[in-house]
């Protein structure tokens, strides 16, 4: 049995944030029905593609984010499409929407109608700026969201432009928070039968995760740092080039002895410049130079293995190829093969976390509109009516 068995979610999202949120709901067992425009688009537009001829079905982003969903096509710009969405919402526990503010309302589903006609429904709105405030209407993408969330200002080299994280981390953070918020809504609704409308703003999620920068400034107007520090924050915290890649060091005071021993520099534990945190801070330049010199002679796999055995906090930067060869991920069967009728057999990340009693499972991404007939039939439409809808292009 899965955790969300019997829970139905309608996914109106077109972006990564909503797509990730509903993928997770689906992987943990919800019946997620993704409503796509008849022309496709959205997550299906991005490569690499397993098959260039069938691009809409074989893009990596779509294959990953649309696992464990059913797909129906519906033109929400038409009264018939809106009527069918209303019938779907009446059967649902939650709806997730990451489209620009006002889209759902323009399709006939204002907040007041949603709460009046579908009181059981948890409605999750995922956006960069939230549903209110002077910037709520502004266009945004992963890049611009990352810029306003505060993380970008601290990422990158001091003498270059601020840098976004790899991939689409602003969107994914929003999607993950949307998942957590939607679950809280479902939990609360399961007690009372009363749904909710939840506003999750990516800018706020990111602004709340600036380590000690925002909170220490807000409390004492102390600037921990302003700007970017590149890959090396201190001798004991940074990314250092090694023989065949990069090593990451992240030593708290209690781990310094293990790090010193790993570097064959036990003498530092006796040396008054390095034996406590204050001394190390005062002599950080010397410490950095020693770590750079040590790392440059290290082979990444061997150094990681030795560090692990010695409880020293040193890891190496894993490329995608390293994930596929990782002894740890292999031992835990983390990566999973999944077959898709058009894209073929490909490798997917495993569960977000492992639930012993109600584990998640991956079902391959649906073909565009692959469940339209099935879902409409569940709503009580006759085969003839469905054919008529197909003829008019509503589905």
């Amino acid at each position, binding site marked *: 049995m899965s955790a969300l068995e019997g829970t139905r979610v309608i996914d109106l999202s077109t972006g990564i944030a909503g797509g990730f949120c509903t993928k997770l709901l689906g992987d943990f067992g919800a019946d997620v029905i993704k409503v796509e425009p008849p022309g496709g688009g959205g997550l299906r537009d991005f490569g690499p593609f397993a098959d260039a001829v069938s691009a809409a079905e074989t893009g990596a982003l779509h294959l*990953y984010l649309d696992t464990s969903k059913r797909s129906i096509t519906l033109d929400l710009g038409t009264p018939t499409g809106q009527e069918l969405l209303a019938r779907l919402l009446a059967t649902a526990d939650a709806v997730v929407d990451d489209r620009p503010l006002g889209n759902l309302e323009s399709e006939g589903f204002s907040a007041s109608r949603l709460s009046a006609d579908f009181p059981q429904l948890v409605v999750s709105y995922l956006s960069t700026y939230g549903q209110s405030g002077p910037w709520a209407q502004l266009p945004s993408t992963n890049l611009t969201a990352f810029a306003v969330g505060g993380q970008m*200002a601290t990422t990158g080299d001091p003498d270059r432009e601020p840098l976004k994280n790899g991939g689409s981390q602003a969107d994914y953070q929003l999607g993950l928070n949307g998942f*957590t918020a939607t*679950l809280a809504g479902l939990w609360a609704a399961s007690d009372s039968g009363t749904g909710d409308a939840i506003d999750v703003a990516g800018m706020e999620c990111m602004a709340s995760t600036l380590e000690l920068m925002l909170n220490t400034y807000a409390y004492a107007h102390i600037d921990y740092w302003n700007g970017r520090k590149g890959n090396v924050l201190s001798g004991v915290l940074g990314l250092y080039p090694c023989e065949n890649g990069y090593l990451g060091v992240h030593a708290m005071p209690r781990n310094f002895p293990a790090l010193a021993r790993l570097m064959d520099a036990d003498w530092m534990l006796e040396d008054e410049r390095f034996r406590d945190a204050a001394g190390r801070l005062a002599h950080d330049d010397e410490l950095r130079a020693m770590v750079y010199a040590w790392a440059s002679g290290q082979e990444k796999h061997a150094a990681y293995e030795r560090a692990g055995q010695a409880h020293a*906090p040193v890891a190496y*930067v894993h490329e995608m190829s390293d994930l596929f060869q990782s002894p740890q991920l292999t031992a835990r069967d983390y990566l999973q093969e999944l077959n898709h009728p058009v894209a073929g057999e490909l490798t997917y990340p495993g569960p977000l976390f492992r639930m012993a009693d109600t584990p998640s499972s991956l079902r391959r991404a649906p073909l565009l509109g692959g469940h339209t007939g099935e879902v409409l039939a569940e709503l009580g439409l006759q085969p003839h009516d469905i054919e008529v809808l197909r003829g008019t292009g509503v589905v």
Partner: protein
Amino acid sequence: MVGRPLEGIRIADLTAVWAGPYATRLLADMGAEVIKVESPNNPDLLRALSLLPAGTEHAWNKSAYFNHNNRNKFGCTIDLANPRGKELFLELVAKSDVVIENYRAEVLDKLGLGYDVLRRARPDIILVSMPGHGKNGPERDFVAYGTNVEQLAGLASLSGYVGGGPQKTGISFGDPVAGAAAAAAVLLALIARKRTGRGQYIELAQRETLTSLLGEYVVGYSMTRENPPRIGNRHPSWAPHGCYPSSGEDEWVTVACRDDAEFASLCRVMGRPELIGDSRYATADSRYRHQDELDETIAAWTRSLGRMEAFEALTAAGVPAAPVLGYRDIYDNPHLRERGFFEQVTHPEAGSWDMERPLYRFARRPTSIERNGPCFGEHNAYVFGELLGLSEAEIAQLEKEGVAARTPNMSSHQ
């Protein structure tokens, strides 16, 4: 209005530092009663990161890093290595729905507090563990702190300037990601328990959780068998897409064009309408090929403006753009201020200041900051007395014997 979403749920919280406390902060913010349990001899590291001047009295109660991540929680102290401490903790477990911990893989079992032991105290207990690597596998006991997780997950390898090496993210990025996911794990287990009547064990390996946030690169690698190149602030298919200098000192504005229409708007806003018809920029593909030149053109324009001017002009024309905001900018941001993102809190020792509010806004179940981040051992009396039924004298005895405490031993963080 129908109460906060998680009203009535109690969580015994053994987590420290960031990832775990961030998870329980999210849950506490939504109304769960979170009881943070700290060791007298190993207080939460964040208490040591106050940045206040040396000699500040009770600095461990005034760390903003700690107080922001632990507000809305109760705090007590128990030495779990002490048999009496262990007994008390198990009594607390018996009255809780959830236990959550982020020790290294072997620690909870070594303390004699593994899932089977907890389940004897409370048959339907939910236990969430969030070790770096997971509880099994050859690397299970390796140390993995914040930035190590992004190295192991594959994120650091995807981050970096065009043509350069991998880049560290600006924060310990894996921590809040694992935290938000662990909060979800608790909620899923509660939802499942309602139907099955059973609790369960959940294991969250932080490196695996973070890999979920770059899954398309895993699937993509299985197609191409090539490690993706580092592309800085660029996008795999949209152009232009970058971070450009503005007139201010170290001030920047990001711009992203998703289609021809947005590019045309950008050209008009820059006063360069002739670029719209330029064959080099006619399609997404051709813009992508010529994005170096485009970046120079855009930078030449943004350098003449303040970042807010460029942002306002571009977004008014429908072009996604935004200033790069630092934490000072965020603190003063008019949009966030108008949304009530900051709430004033009052702490019995640390005073009053503005703190970011609970993240998720429920229309029918409003939430707010209702209690300060607990002083060390602040709620010993509530937990040992009100919940577990000990007398004042017995609590005083616990504190005298060091099973509990109100003054932390900070030596492990120096």
